[in-house]
């Protein structure tokens, strides 16, 4: 009898703790943004989004992935807004009807990172010449290989440099299939070259002997765009609140907040929504 009672108390306690543990969150007003690791890990979002959240009362939940993955997530309807950097892929996304309209927000630039003693002699202001030098020297090069915006840009540069990378690929070219940070860690540990966005590089701590090898080439320009996911494809998309975020980041206030973000006195992103 007493044993039975104990057993009942035990089950009741289990049930109660279970209820406590899974009790639902208070209903919050929020939107989900699929974005890239470069905007999240460079610290831009931590600077930019609180200003919007204060003004609008809408919380922004950011899922940071590579551009390709972020767009795929949005295709499935798992985000309200995408904020990414691969113009070609973004335009395709809109053309397929998954996005309402693409708006340009800001740009930053890519930098070619490599060992400071530059064994391939790739240094300079010309990214294509730099890549040709690396390929000629068969110097270790780390590729993102993850369909991200940076990966897409890297492939475009190889092509523009007149190198068929699929054919030229050898043991020197490491296809890592990883995000910007992990790729930087890999490059740092094997003293390899790689293409990175400046924001992530500036915020990256485990640099080892790496430094900037090529920067300042106009072709290294990296444009970010923002797109509302099409509510016609997915009925649950938070159209009004998502549009509010888009309107704000391209507004004077939003653009100024982007320009104000600096690491060590260096501005990371250059607003250009007005263009």
């Amino acid at each position, binding site marked *: 009898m007493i044993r039975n009672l*104990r*057993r009942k108390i035990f089950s009741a306690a*289990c049930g109660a*703790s*279970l209820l406590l*543990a*899974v009790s639902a*969150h208070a209903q919050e007003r929020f939107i*989900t943004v699929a974005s890239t*690791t470069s905007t999240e*890990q460079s610290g831009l979002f*931590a600077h930019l989004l609180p200003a919007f959240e204060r003004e609008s009362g809408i919380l922004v*939940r*950011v*899922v*940071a992935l590579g551009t390709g993955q972020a767009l795929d997530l949005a295709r*499935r*309807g*798992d985000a309200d807004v995408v904020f990414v950097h691969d113009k070609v892929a973004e335009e395709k996304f809109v053309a397929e009807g998954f996005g309402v309209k693409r708006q340009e927000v800001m740009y930053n630039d890519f930098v070619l990172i490599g060992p400071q003693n530059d064994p391939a002699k790739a240094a300079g202001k010309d990214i294509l010449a730099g890549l040709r030098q690396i390929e000629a020297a068969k110097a270790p090069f780390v590729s993102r290989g993850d369909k991200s915006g940076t990966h897409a840009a890297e492939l475009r540069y190889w092509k523009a440099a007149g190198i068929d990378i699929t054919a030229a690929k050898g043991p020197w070219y490491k296809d890592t299939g990883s*995000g*910007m*940070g*992990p790729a*930087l*860690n890999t490059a*740092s540990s094997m003293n390899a070259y790689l293409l990175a966005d400046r924001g992530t590089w500036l*915020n*990256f*701590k*485990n*640099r080892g002997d790496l430094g900037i090898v090529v920067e300042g080439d106009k072709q290294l320009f990296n444009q970010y765009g923002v797109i509302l996911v099409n509510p016609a494809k*997915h009925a*649950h998309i938070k159209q009004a609140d998502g549009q509010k975020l888009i309107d704000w980041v391209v507004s004077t206030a939003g653009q100024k907040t982007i320009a104000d973000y600096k690491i060590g006195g260096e501005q990371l992103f250059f607003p250009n929504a007005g263009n």
Partner: protein
Amino acid sequence: MHEMTTSLALAGELFAQGDSQLLAIVLLSLRVSLTATLLACLIGMPLGALLAVGRFPGRRTLIVLFNALMGLPPVVVGLIVYLLLSRAGPLGQFGLLFTPTAMVIAQTILIVPIVAALSRQVVEDAWREYREQLRSLGANRLRAARTLLWDGRFSLTTAGLAGFGRAVAEVGAVMIVGGNIDGVTRVMTTTIALETSKGDLPLALALGMILIAVVLLINIAAFLLRQWAERRWG
């Protein structure tokens, strides 16, 4: 070795400061993984007991299957749960993706096989020992399974702790179904992965040490509780 000492000092500092953001992350980790463990025990333990005492076709296949599923890769579980919960998936209408509930579901699936397989072993050993006795008391198999589970409850804590250990330590599943959203689904392991990708290795390692310390505390608490309960009721 220098990094180790830096991280150890950093871990101590973080712990002493009681940083509210870090505390929230630790608490979310515990909330998700403890809930998953509890659910996995409620499902896995009866399942294990039935596999131990039951006699039905396919029983041996199921035993081998659950043993094999102990090695289920978290990233695969994450992917499956993602596809189920995604808006385009069969359970999309509930909007559970990128919530702690999604993380609980993924971790529960991940550890049910562990809890079930270990419980089966415990109950099977007891069944071998008390089979005749239980039969002479006229207990059917269902009744026997319940009795053996209850009698083995102290030994079964190990099964629960093994499940909890696996749940709280995995990163592959919660990263995919939770999305590592700051303040919503960011837990200890995803924070460690994030700091590693930022190249802040000392901080990542310090967070890892804190995670180990928290898991150690849970295990100490479970051990003491078991001892106390065994003295009281055992």
